[in-house]
């Protein structure tokens, strides 16, 4: 039995089901992200775990105990908000101390605990500051310490880094993960930023319109997306139109050329499908005879810093090929013909428009 | 909440009811008819109406250019002017009129008997409201951006003023005008002390002598104020501004 379990959780507002059948088992100490666009239900689900929303159906259990009927202030669940929600009339120390005071900790022990927390977030010398005297990053760290001070069973974070600027976001991200691992606390992290989800989580739950699209490790989600939505949501994706030549062998026709997928394709002969390829799986070397090859025209070269992106036209569409920058990079001239190579495993075949519907993958990448 | 409603509506209802007792034993609008028939009603109302219009014109003509200037050229003056908008609170009308009389009753500035002094006093009273409305209107329209865009397109200041700035301020101008109007119409303190035949003193006089007419007047004045403020709220729904009509007419 998992530490945190959600079973068949549904939340309706009027007739609209904002969360529609959510099942998840989280192990103790795991860091799970809920990833999705706005309106996908990730924050609502989080708030149901916290107790600020009540599920219309379904059960939520922590350590075996059903918590849906339990009031939010008795669940032992800590929460960190997007806008920090530090109490403005209290110093950092008093904010962190608040949960301990409510739980009637011995003052000496409480003080020691607060000092521990301040050391954890490296803000010992800011203890007497008020929230309005601190930057966003500092406030969020204080909010984190406040939530952790009372040793919650589960830690919930609702897009905690969205209000901060990029540089601070990067720093704080690693800090949060380090603290979480150090304390071994079960954590649910809501975000719309896939980079955050990929870099922080043990597992990611990709959500759309109230449903779970896929649950898996970051590696799985990226390399083996369950459907077109997940594939296009995470990372960059090249999409080409293709027609099925041979379903059993996975042969496809792309812009008059032949491409082979890694396995059989679950589609009918002649059916129009979409072939999706990650930019980093493409290369200009075409040595391996078992791999696929495609001919196209180099339309543009974009320099992105550590990555050089080649924009190549194939069959009326433009696809990206990413390669690392190198001081003596020899690249073909714009406008010339180029030949791409990619392994069969790089092929992701889906039946319709990638991002519009949840089309299941028609081929399995091994 | 319920008691709030009671407290607010009972006096209004009572007043209305009372005002219907124009004729003994008969519920009707007799009191209202008598009020309208009274020549004094018309003269004093007209006088106050004229004063209100003058106040609006002078006030707007004074404050709009000033606020625009502050926004564009002299932002440092903003706190100073804003402090002045607090002045009518610190110097209530009764004190203000006292000072005005003392200053302007003797040559060389013998203005006491001129309606100009009354208008000036009203402008002082209305100033906080006009200022706030104009300021809100200018802030909502990104004055600097618009004027710079217009200038880069070759517009002169006349065009900018009349074709761009003022039309975009319609709502706050209306709001300022209505508010000033409602303040001036019912104003008592300045009018009584400076001995002008205004609507406020007229109402007080009526209240002293007659029984039912005053309540009719009260209802009329309430309807008028309500109508004006209602118009403001309606018009300013396009302007996202808070706290428009605040304060008490002393």
């Amino acid at each position: 039995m998992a530490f945190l379990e959600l079973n068949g959780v549904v939340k309706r507002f009027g007739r609209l089901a904002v969360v529609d059948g959510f099942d998840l088992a989280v192990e103790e100490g795991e860091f799970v992200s809920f990833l999705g666009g706005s309106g996908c239900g990730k924050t609502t689900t989080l708030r149901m775990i916290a107790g600020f929303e009540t599920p219309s159906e379904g059960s939520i259990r922590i350590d075996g105990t059903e918590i849906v009927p339990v009031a939010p202030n008795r669940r032992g669940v800590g929460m960190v908000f997007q806008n920090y929600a530090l109490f403005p009339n209290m110093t950092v120390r008093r904010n962190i101390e608040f949960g301990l005071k409510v739980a009637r900790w011995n003052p000496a022990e409480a003080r020691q605990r607060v000092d521990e927390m301040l050391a954890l977030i490296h803000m010992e010398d800011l203890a007497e500051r008020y929230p309005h005297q601190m930057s966003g990053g500092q406030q969020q760290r204080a909010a984190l310490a406040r939530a952790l001070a009372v040793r919650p069973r589960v830690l919930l974070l609702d897009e905690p880094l969205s209000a901060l600027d990029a540089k601070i976001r990067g720093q704080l991200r690693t800090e949060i993960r380090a603290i979480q691992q150090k304390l071994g606390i079960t954590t649910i992290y809501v975000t719309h930023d896939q980079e955050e989800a990929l870099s922080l989580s043990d597992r990611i739950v990709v959500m759309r319109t109230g449903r779970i699209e896929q649950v898996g490790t970051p590696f799985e989600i990226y390399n083996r997306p369950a459907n077109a939505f997940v594939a296009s949501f995470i990372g960059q994706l090249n999409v080409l139109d293709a027609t099925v030549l041979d379903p059993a062998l996975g042969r496809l026709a792309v812009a008059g050329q032949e491409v082979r997928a890694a396995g059989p394709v679950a589609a009918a002969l002649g059916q129009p499908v979409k072939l999706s390829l990650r930019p980093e799986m493409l290369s200009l070397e075409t040595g391996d005879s078992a791999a696929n090859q495609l001919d196209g025209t180099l339309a543009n070269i974009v320099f992105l810093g550590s990555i050089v992106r080649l924009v190549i036209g194939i069959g009326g569409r433009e696809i990206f090929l990413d390669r690392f920058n190198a001081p003596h990079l020899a690249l073909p001239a714009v406008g010339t013909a180029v030949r791409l190579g990619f392994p069969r495993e790089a092929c992701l075949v889906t039946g319709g428009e990638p991002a519009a519907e949840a089309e299941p993958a028609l081929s399995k990448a091994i | 909440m319920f008691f709030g409603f009671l407290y607010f509506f009972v006096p209004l209802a009572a007043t209305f009811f009372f005002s219907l007792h124009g004729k003994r034993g008969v519920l009707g609008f007799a009191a209202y008819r008598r009020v309208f028939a009274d020549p004094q009603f018309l003269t004093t109302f007209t006088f106050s109406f004229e004063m209100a219009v003058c106040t609006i014109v002078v006030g707007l003509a004074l404050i709009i250019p000033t606020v625009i200037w502050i926004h564009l050229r002299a932002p440092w003056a903003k706190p100073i002017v804003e402090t002045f908008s607090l002045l009518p609170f610190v110097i209530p009308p009764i004190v203000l009129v006292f000072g005005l009389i003392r200053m302007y009753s003797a040559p060389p500035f013998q203005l006491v008997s001129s309606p100009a002094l009354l208008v000036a006093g009203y402008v002082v009273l209305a100033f906080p409201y006009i200022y706030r409305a104009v300021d809100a209107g200018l802030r909502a329209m990104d004055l600097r951006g618009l004027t710079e865009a217009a200038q880069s397109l070759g517009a002169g200041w006349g065009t900018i003023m009349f074709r761009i700035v003022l039309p975009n301020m319609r709502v706050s101008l209306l709001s300022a005008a209505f508010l000033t109007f409602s303040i001036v119409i019912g104003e008592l303190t300045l009018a009584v002390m400076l001995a002008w035949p205004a609507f406020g003193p007229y109402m007080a006089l009526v209240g002293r002598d007659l029984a039912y007419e005053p309540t009719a007047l009260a209802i009329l004045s309430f309807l008028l104020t309500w109508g004006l403020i209602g118009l403001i709220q309606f018009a300013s729904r396009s302007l996202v501004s808070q706290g428009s009509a605040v304060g008490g007419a002393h």
Partner: protein
Amino acid sequence: MTDRPAGPRGALTARPSSSPRRAWLGIVPFALFALAFMILPASSILLGSFQDEHGAFTLANIAHLARPDILKCYLVTIQVSAVTAVAGGLFGLLLAFSVTLGGLPKALRSGLLTFSGVASNFAGVPLAFAFIATMGRVGIVTVILKTVFGVNLYEHGFNLYSFWGLCLTYLYFQLPLMVLIITPALDGVKKEWREASESLGASGFQYWVHIALPILAPPLLSSMILLFGNAFGAYATAYALTGGLLNLVPILIGAQIQGDVLHDPNLGYALAFGMVVVMTACILAYTALQKRASRWLR
């Protein structure tokens, strides 16, 4: 008519930098007006309170403020203002609370705010009439209470034309004013604070005692101070209600202007000076508290 120099519009050019001297130009019309009709009258009052009939400097007027009957007058005015400030403040807070944090429907909220906008201006003569019609000797409510419930208000000591009657009447514009001022502050109370405190184990009561009330205390206090000042300076309502009989500072000042039996303009100036001192103290306290409030409720 007041002379106004040609407006600053003509003086504005498209020059990128403005020398300080030209920047002053645009303020001139307003400055003249403010000088003529705000600063000078106020200072002349100030001066007058330190002068006697012959214009010589004297502190006698200020000393006269200490006369027992004058002191009583100030006391009564302070009492009326304090009572209506606190009562208006508390009830106004309750009302505002019910439509912001209390969760009553949005329609009620805009209705209440609109009504408050009107009612806070409904002071002066019409208000006095309305209350006379309601609670006066032959007022509707008085009559109803007498005929239907057998309760004779006036026999029980209630009198509209007394201290408490005036307080009741003043509340009619104090309450809405409070609603208008305190609503933005209540809106600034973030719901996340409540949720954070709950997630940390606090009960609703603990939330209010440790967080919400300390945060709301400054704006509450400052609003009540504003209400105090509002009532202190009010003239028209009291005048219309009691015809100048009530012993209030504004009424007394009015009497000095109009020349009554005790006609002594210099006393009047001193009275006015005293009033300005009180109002200034109010506005200073108000701004100081507001600064603190706005920091937390941003």
